[in-house]
Structures are given as structure tokens and as C-alpha cells.
């Protein structure tokens, strides 16, 4: 279990989990690009609706999704504050000393924060629903055309998957060594910086020794089986683009089109709504 639990994979076996990982990576790219084309709050609402629907279909608790934003909350607040202070357009709301806050600034800051959080939640959703191994397989497959210009895609993929394979093992090892040294009275997380670094040595040295040993053993094992990352290798799990992937593609394309329509045809739906409300009021 721990082999896949590294990273953020959240297994529920939903249809989203079972989609072709290549398709998911491409959807991800489309999603990332399209977020920068969103022109109105209605657009953001649509992106959020899309994201939350996918999350629900993937059976991932919305709380888990929000947790991924928590990690970058500081960054978000920082950019928002910067934007409020340095973006000077539109109606001035506050003008005091060197500080000038405008309606445009606030508007821009909110949109930026929305953009960042939707971006982060989207990428997290990919890692919640796709194992690292699937991701490397998909990347290898997507990069395949590059072999024609002599890029060693197979080697790169092998390196990636070995690295991924090693991370959980090393994390386990770190845990164990830390416990062993704590049992010998080591105080690993107290004191100042120098003391902390010194205290890490009893953990780092055995960890490096074990990492090198593991790498050596793996290299020997690969050699002993005459492994080489040639392109003639076959896969145990062949990636397949099926009906559900086609349906998903269609949905993503409709979503992208709606966002683009909002920007280029309507120039942002918000304006119309504001006009409409004004019309009602006046």
C-alpha cells in the first residue's frame, strides 16, 4: 500500500481514476491554459463548477481538495496584497500617503487569487486520481514522438520511474533510522539551526549509505537481467484510449469552448449581468 500512497494518490476507483492517464495529462494542460483565458466572474464560476463536478465524480472529499490550497495560502495572500497596492486602474477607493487602492486593483487581486487556487486544485486533482507510475507511463507515451529526434525518452522514463520507486522506500528508511536514533536519545527536532543540522547527521549518514547500497543492488539486478531501455520493450499495462476517454474529451472541449466564447464573443458575461441588474433597478 505504501508504494502508491506516496504523493497524494487517493484511491476510490472512480471513473476519473480509470481514465487514460495520457488523456488526463492533456486535460490538465488544457485546463491550465484555459484558466488564463477566463475573462469574467461567471467564467470562474464555470471553472469552479467544472472542477467540483469532476471532484464529486472522482469521489474525492472536497475537504481534501481544499487542503491542497492551504499549502499555498501564504503565497496567495501575498500576491493578492501586492496586486491591491500596485495595480492602479479604475475608481480610486482609498488614497492615503503613498497608498492608493482602486476598484480595479481589488478586482484584479480577487481574480488572481481565484486563478491560483483553481490551478492548484486542478493539478492536485490529477495527482489524487492518478498514481505516479501511471503518470510516468503516460509521459513516456506522450513524449514518444521525440524519439524521432533522438531524445532518449525510454531512458528518461526509466530514470523517472526508478526515482519514483525509490522515494517511498527512502521515506520508510528515514522513518526507521530516525526512530532508531531517537531510541538512542538523539534529539532531532530541538535547538538552533547549527544544532539541528548536527543532530541530523546520525540520520543522514545511514540514509545515504542505504541509498547508495540500494542503488548499487538495483543496478546489479538490472544488469543481471540484461536490462536495457530499448524501444522494443513491451508494457505490462498497455494504455488504452477508450470510449470513456472520448466522452471525457468531449466534455473538456465543451468546457473550454464556453470559456473562450465568454471571452471573445461576449467579452465577459459580467458586464451584461451588471447592465441587466441596472436595467431592473432603473
Amino acid at each position, binding site marked *: *500500500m*505504501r508504494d502508491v*500512497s506516496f504523493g497524494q494518490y*487517493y*484511491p*476510490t476507483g472512480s471513473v476519473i481514476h480509470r481514465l487514460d492517464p495520457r488523456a488526463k495529462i492533456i486535460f490538465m494542460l488544457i485546463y491550465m491554459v484555459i484558466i488564463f483565458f477566463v475573462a469574467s466572474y461567471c467564467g470562474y464560476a464555470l471553472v469552479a463548477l467544472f472542477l467540483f463536478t469532476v471532484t464529486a465524480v472522482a469521489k474525492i472529499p472536497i475537504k481534501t481538495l481544499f487542503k491542497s490550497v492551504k499549502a499555498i495560502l501564504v503565497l496567495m495572500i501575498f500576491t493578492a496584497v501586492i496586486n491591491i497596492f500596485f495595480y492602479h486602474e479604475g475608481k480610486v477607493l482609498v488614497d492615503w500617503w503613498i497608498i492608493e487602492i482602486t476598484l480595479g486593483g481589488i478586482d484584479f487581486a480577487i481574480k488572481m487569487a481565484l486563478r491560483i487556487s483553481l490551478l492548484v486544485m486542478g493539478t492536485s486533482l490529477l495527482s489524487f486520481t492518478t498514481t505516479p507510475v501511471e503518470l510516468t507511463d503516460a509521459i513516456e507515451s506522450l513524449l514518444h514522438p521525440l524519439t524521432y529526434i533522438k531524445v532518449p525518452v525510454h531512458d528518461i522514463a526509466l530514470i523517472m520511474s526508478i526515482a519514483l520507486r525509490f522515494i517511498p522506500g527512502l521515506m520508510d*528508511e528515514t522513518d*526507521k*533510522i530516525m*526512530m*532508531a*536514533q*531517537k*531510541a*538512542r*536519545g*538523539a*534529539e532531532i527536532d530541538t535547538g538552533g539551526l547549527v544544532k539541528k543540522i548536527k543532530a541530523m*547527521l*546520525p540520520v543522514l*549518514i*545511514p540514509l545515504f*549509505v*542505504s541509498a547508495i547500497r540500494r542503488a548499487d543492488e538495483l543496478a546489479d539486478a538490472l544488469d543481471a537481467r540484461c536490462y536495457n531501455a530499448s524501444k522494443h520493450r513491451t508494457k505490462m499495462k498497455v494504455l488504452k484510449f477508450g470510449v470513456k476517454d472520448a466522452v471525457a474529451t468531449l466534455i473538456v472541449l465543451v468546457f473550454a469552448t464556453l470559456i473562450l466564447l465568454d471571452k471573445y464573443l461576449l467579452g465577459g458575461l459580467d458586464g451584461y449581468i451588471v447592465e441587466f441588474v441596472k436595467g431592473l433597478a432603473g
Partner: protein
Amino acid sequence: MRIEVKDLAFTYSPGTPFAKRALDGIDLSIEEGDFVGILGHTGSGKSTFILHLNGLIKLQSGSIDVFDIKLVPDKKNKQDLRKLRGTVGMVFQYPEYQLFEDTVEKDVAFGPKNLGLSQEKVDRRVERAIRLVGLDFEDIRGRAPFELSGGQKRRVAIAGIIAMQPRVLVLDEPTAGLDPYGKEQILELITRLKKECSPTVIVISHDVDEITRFASRIVVFNDGKVAFDLPMNELFRRSEELAAMGLEIPRAVRIADKLRARGIDLGDVVNADDLVRAIVRKFDKNNMDETDIAKLSAAQFDFGSDEAFGGAGGEA
């Protein structure tokens, strides 16, 4: 003085899809001076349990009392933890992987130093510990741990714990990955350590034959619970239940069972010593005394290898 564990439960990664209940309502009390063997198939929670004894994982529910150092959930007391680590010495599986200093002497000194002892005291303890594990102190003190053999490394690692002079010694699979000779030596070492250093010993083992050799009490873990907790000589009357839990039955017991099936009843037999004794009692016409019997059992019944099993079965 005793170790008292009450209603201990533990779940790895709680609240995620990977949640795994490793311990489920453990009640156990271990008296000072006990020699406890912990048995159980892989994943039954043995390691998780002993980590608790040293405060190495945060208590989730239940309570632990080690020689009047009390641990309860949601309370972290640095002082207590430090005292606990001086009281319970923990030898992990493959302890040689924790060596890190450039000389054996320095590595063994790491533990006692962390206890805040004076240099003089540390030196004394280091020397004593290295001698106690059966290594040549003068020869080995200046050598790098990484250039030693596997068995030597393991001894050095054990010395590193012994040097802290814990009152309770806990060992997790101390013989894993050693050859039969190395195993034998470590087992002897454990018996010696119990006598000369830490009066209370808890050993985890997969190998039933190993555990029956020294432990006076056996605790069997099954699926995060204590399935049995009995003096050793009673446990193996329950060989069927053991087998149902996927555990091996000691060779001596199997031999005695087979003999019983053929009409030769040797009474209660748990390990090689018992078996030899019972056989001699039954068939001896020369009236051997205790020392003769001890010699016999040491010489002929090396239960470390499968040949010995075949040989012993044949002879009997």
C-alpha cells in the same frame, strides 16, 4: 516495578483511505525480570507495539506505564520521554543500519552521551558494553563500523544500546539475516545480557524454535490483538490454535506429538532441552545425572538446522 499496557490501540494514517489498524485493544503487563518472547505472523502488530514502549510513536488511545513513567494520549512530556529512552533500550531489526560514526567507540558512545553522562562515565560504559557483546575492545575501538562484518556490526549496534544500561531490553528480530552460527551467538548474547545488564528482556521473533529456547513467557500477537499470553510450557499444548494462526509449531513439540501418535508419551515438551531430558528419562538405563543430560542436549540436538530435525526424529 512493571510495564503495564492498557487498552492500547493504534491506526496508521488515520482518516485516509490508507488507514490501517495495527493494534486493537492490547492489554499486557510485564513484570521486572520477565523474559518475554513475542510471536506472531507478519503484519500482526509486533513492531508497532514495541515502538510504543519507547515512546517512538504517539499514543493514540489507551495508556502505557513503564516503571512508573506514564504515557497517555495528547500529552507530550520531554522529560518523561528522555527518561523512558534511558529505561527501555530498543534494538531495531537490522540495527547495523543505524551506525554512523567513524569509529566503533564513538558510535557506541552516542547513546550514553545523549543521556548526559560525564565523559569518564561514558568511556567506562562504552568499554564495558563492547566487551559484553563479545568483541575485542582494544582491537575494535578505533575501527570504522562500515569495515566490519555483518555479525560484528550487529554486535556493535547492540553495544550502542547496552551502553545506555537500560533496565528493559527490547529486541526486534535480532537474528534476522544471520547464518545459523551468527544466530546462535546472538541468542547466547541475549541470555548473557539478561543476566549481566538488563534484567527484563522482550524479544520479537519469527522463529518459534528460537523463542522457546530462552523465553519464559510467550505473547502471541494476531491481527493487532494479544491472542495468547502464557508461560512458555503451556503455550504448546495449544498447537492447533497456533497452527490456525499460521504459526509454526516448535520442532521439539512436533517430534513429541509424532512419538505420542506411536504410543510413546514424553509428557510436556517445548524445546530441545525438554525433549532430550524427557527421552533420557524414559529410556535411560544408566541413570544419567543432570550434567550428563545437559551435555547430551548441547552436543546432539542442535535444532538450528533441518538436518538436526531429521536426525533427531530418526534416532528417536
